[in-house]
């Protein structure tokens, strides 16, 4: 087996993880293929200097976060900081299956999921990244610390702060919605 085939196997084994992490970090399906390709090309270039002090998965998270950061910078440059979740390239949460719930609950849950995604995109880059790596990817503090090059204490602080901000924003949103519903009913 030659080197290219081996690397193709590496891509195949990790492509799901790279795609879903990039999707959650960037909040959009736009350029997702290109970004994922960039991640693997960077990995390929970095392999000769990869000393194996971490799992290749953890190393890939590090690269994926860097690629997402570059994408955020590019968007900021393009003045496209506002991400619409109603466009045809995002809104992945619309396709989540909830087989054990009735239609009304599904709609409610989907709306809530959409709200979480919106609020997630409003957090700082670092808070969003840590929340995604911890909750979605189920990475440990140590792995996140390695991926982001930060002390574990800082990771804990950002995680706590990010969750608090997310909760407050969603609580505020829910209160507003309930008030609006009360007003409409009266």
């Amino acid at each position: 087996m030659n080197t290219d085939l081996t690397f193709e196997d590496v891509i195949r084994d990790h492509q799901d993880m790279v795609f879903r992490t990039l999707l959650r970090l960037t909040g959009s399906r736009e350029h997702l293929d290109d970004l994922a390709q960039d991640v693997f090309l960077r990995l390929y270039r970095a392999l000769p200097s990869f000393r194996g002090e971490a799992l290749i998965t953890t190393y890939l998270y590090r690269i994926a976060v860097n690629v997402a950061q570059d994408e955020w910078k590019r968007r900021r440059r393009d003045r496209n900081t506002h991400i619409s979740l109603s466009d045809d390239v995002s809104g992945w949460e619309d396709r989540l299956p909830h087989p054990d719930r009735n239609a009304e609950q599904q709609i409610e849950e989907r709306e809530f999921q959409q709200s979480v995604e919106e609020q997630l995109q409003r957090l700082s880059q670092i808070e969003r990244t840590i929340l995604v790596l911890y909750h979605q990817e189920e990475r440990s503090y140590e792995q996140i610390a390695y991926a982001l090059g930060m002390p574990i204490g800082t990771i804990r602080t950002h995680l706590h702060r990010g969750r608090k901000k997310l909760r407050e924003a969603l609580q505020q949103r829910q209160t507003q919605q309930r008030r609006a519903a009360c007003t409409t009913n009266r």
Partner: protein
Amino acid sequence: MHDQPIDQNNLSPTMMEHLDQNLDQRILRALETVPQPHIPTGFAARVASQLPARPTVSPTPTHYGQRAMLIAMVVTLVALLVLALQPAAHALGLLETLLFAEFVALTVWISVWRYGLR
């Protein structure tokens, strides 16, 4: 039947606590929901086919630096000998000192490099 809208001002502390816990659980559930992005068919093969060729490393070292050092040492030594045969002059004495310093530096450098005196 779907829940009626709740007036938060009339809620008991227990009810508020219950709502808070419920919200926490829903947030965690939403965060832990793994998106399922569409991965194009043959993505791995396409990326692998676009990998840049690795730079080839020559198996035989060239030692250009070593040769340059040896040539410089010989040239410096010859220059020192030529200067030593000249009658004493202040300017030449200064040049001789500089060349001698260069010769010593080159000798130390090549010794460190060749015999690993590091």
